[in-house]
């Protein structure tokens, strides 16, 4: 495993570059990332892109309301992710993969290390958050449980504070994470790839009927998203859901 500090430091420089120099810098950045991330366990690199707000400006992470779920799509236009400020400093966690190996989820990012980006597609049977229905949802911690992402289709639950690790229910493994790199000076973040079990192709296959309806074809659903607009879950989905379990 590579030195995380040097990896993040190099990314930090690159992020600033990309934000300053626009379109040419991401290619340099991607080359740097390819070298830096090749030793990461369970990392799938995709184009490095900054998180934006709903208006298309660079998102300032300090503006994320605590315990309020946000949605952005990455790496494809059809693959949603949660972005959540958990209001607590989150350390790195070792997370098991389906084959018995594991990977290191690097913890929260942002000035308080409290922000996480986890897939809004359930790895159990590939239910997902869509504009029509928020089948997965976020529940803030209470007396009974910590911060949880739940999938109401079959009530798989995932620990949002531990990189999406399975907490209960039928899911065989954790939610994938979006690997975010924090730019402290800008208080912004760059998505660089998917960390964990990459089940995006399984998702596309399992949900192809719905995706064809929404996007026209599977090919169109698999187009890379180049504008990572972050919008609130409440405003994104017409049907926010919850499925409380105790």
């Amino acid at each position, binding site marked *: 495993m590579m030195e995380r500090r040097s990896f993040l430091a190099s990314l930090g420089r690159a992020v600033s570059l990309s934000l300053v120099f626009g379109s040419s810098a991401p290619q340099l950045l991607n080359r740097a990332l390819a070298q830096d991330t090749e030793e990461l366990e369970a990392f799938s690199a995709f184009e490095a892109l900054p998180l934006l707000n709903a208006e298309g400006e660079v998102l300032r992470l300090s503006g994320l309301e605590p315990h309020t779920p946000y949605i952005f799509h990455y790496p494809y236009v059809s693959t949603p992710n949660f972005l959540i400020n958990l209001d607590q400093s989150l350390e790195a966690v070792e997370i098991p993969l389906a084959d018995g190996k594991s990977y290191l989820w690097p913890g929260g990012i942002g000035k308080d290390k409290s922000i996480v980006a986890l897939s809004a597609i359930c790895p159990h*049977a590939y*239910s997902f958050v869509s504009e029509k229905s928020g*089948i997965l949802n976020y529940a803030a911690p209470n007396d009974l449980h910590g911060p949880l992402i739940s999938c109401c*289709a079959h009530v798989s639950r995932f620990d949002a504070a531990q990189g999406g690790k399975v907490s209960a*229910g039928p899911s065989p493994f954790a939610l994938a994470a979006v690997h975010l790199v924090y730019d402290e000076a800008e208080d912004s973040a760059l998505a660089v790839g998917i960390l964990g079990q990459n089940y995006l192709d399984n998702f596309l296959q399992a949900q192809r009927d719905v995706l064809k309806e929404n996007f026209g074809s599977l090919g169109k659903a698999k187009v890379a998203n180049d504008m990572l607009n972050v919008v609130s879950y409440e405003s994104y989905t017409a049907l926010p859901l919850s*499925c*409380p379990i*105790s």
Partner: protein
Amino acid sequence: MDRRDFLKKSAKGAALAAASSSLGFSFAQAWYGKSPNLLGEAKGNRVVIIGGGWGGTTVARQLLRSGGAEVVMIEQNPFFISCPMSNLYLAGVKPLDFITFEYSEAISEGMIFINERALEIDRDSKVVATSAGNVSYDYLVLSPGIDYMNESIEGFDEVAHLMPVGFKPFEHIALRRKIENFEGGDFIISIPKPPYRCPPGPYERVAMLAWYLKENLIPGKITVLDANNNPLAKANGFLAAYDELYGDYVEYIPNADVIGVDYAAKTVKTADLGDFSFDLANIIPQMKAGGIVQQAGLGERWANIALPYFTAEGDDSVYLLGDIVGNLPVPKSGMIANSEGHIVAKQLADRIAGKTKEESAIEMPSNICYSFVNEDEGIWVSADYGWNVGESKVDRTASGLDEARTAANGILAIEWARGLWGDMFGKS
């Protein structure tokens, strides 16, 4: 006993035994057109699955995905009809093809599909006799589902073919035809004492058929004769739906244990509440494990597993799952069988890879059960289960309940089905 003895004792055995003697060989070959030993000897990794339902199909798909096993399924039906969501079909909300699936994905991944009835299991010789010949196994997965205890209702067995129950595949088609032909009058639905397949299923059926009558202005009334003193699951949600949505279309009568039926007189007899006449009746009798469980000597009404694993008590080469299991405190549901299928497949993959049974992780199933109460609104109940090491028993570790009918729950119910059907029948 050895294989030859077993063959001699089985019903088909006389002819099959002749096949293995030099004199009768060619005659029997011509007679059956197939080898008596369908797949040759098992080579250590053969998993024979009896039953292509929620449990068996899940085991097959998961083993095919993990690799290493020779996967054989013995299933008497050519394709699968889902019991979950079948009440939508009975009420005319969804077509038959919505709940119908083929085994083609599993077959394309290498599963050997024997579309025959499993007749007998010889656990000493590790051989299953089917209506087409014998199959030897290294591991047997038994997931045949339920049979009806027709004998629990006097006069029912003789007319069972006229009164489809609709809790096993294909019966739904006959029951739907009867419902379509019902132009009004008294419609009785009887509900047995547990354990039976899908505890909320009959209550959902009552709601959906009441919706069907009301929607289509059919002047009928559903009388629910429930052997129990209250609905067994989501009671408040169901009773509220009967009362608030369907009024005079439904009369719910608790503690009405149906003990007899007179089909000619069109009456059913209850233990304590007298007789009820009907124009159409859907009698749901008590249930037991599929007959092959008893034949194999694995239990009388239900079969027990050697907790916390899913092997049969006293036989580590046989795995039991789904509705036939008697000693797990879980409902008999499709999702439980699917969830157990994932667990059994992992444990089998470990065994085939050379681990002992005890080296596998101990896991227990989880369940969520959605029920519709009209064409688009649902209610649900859920539970997780876990193995209590200290007390050596299965605990319910978490649960949820939503008895307020909503369209959101209806959307989730459909997504529930899509997800699990996809797991069993979709492309990998």
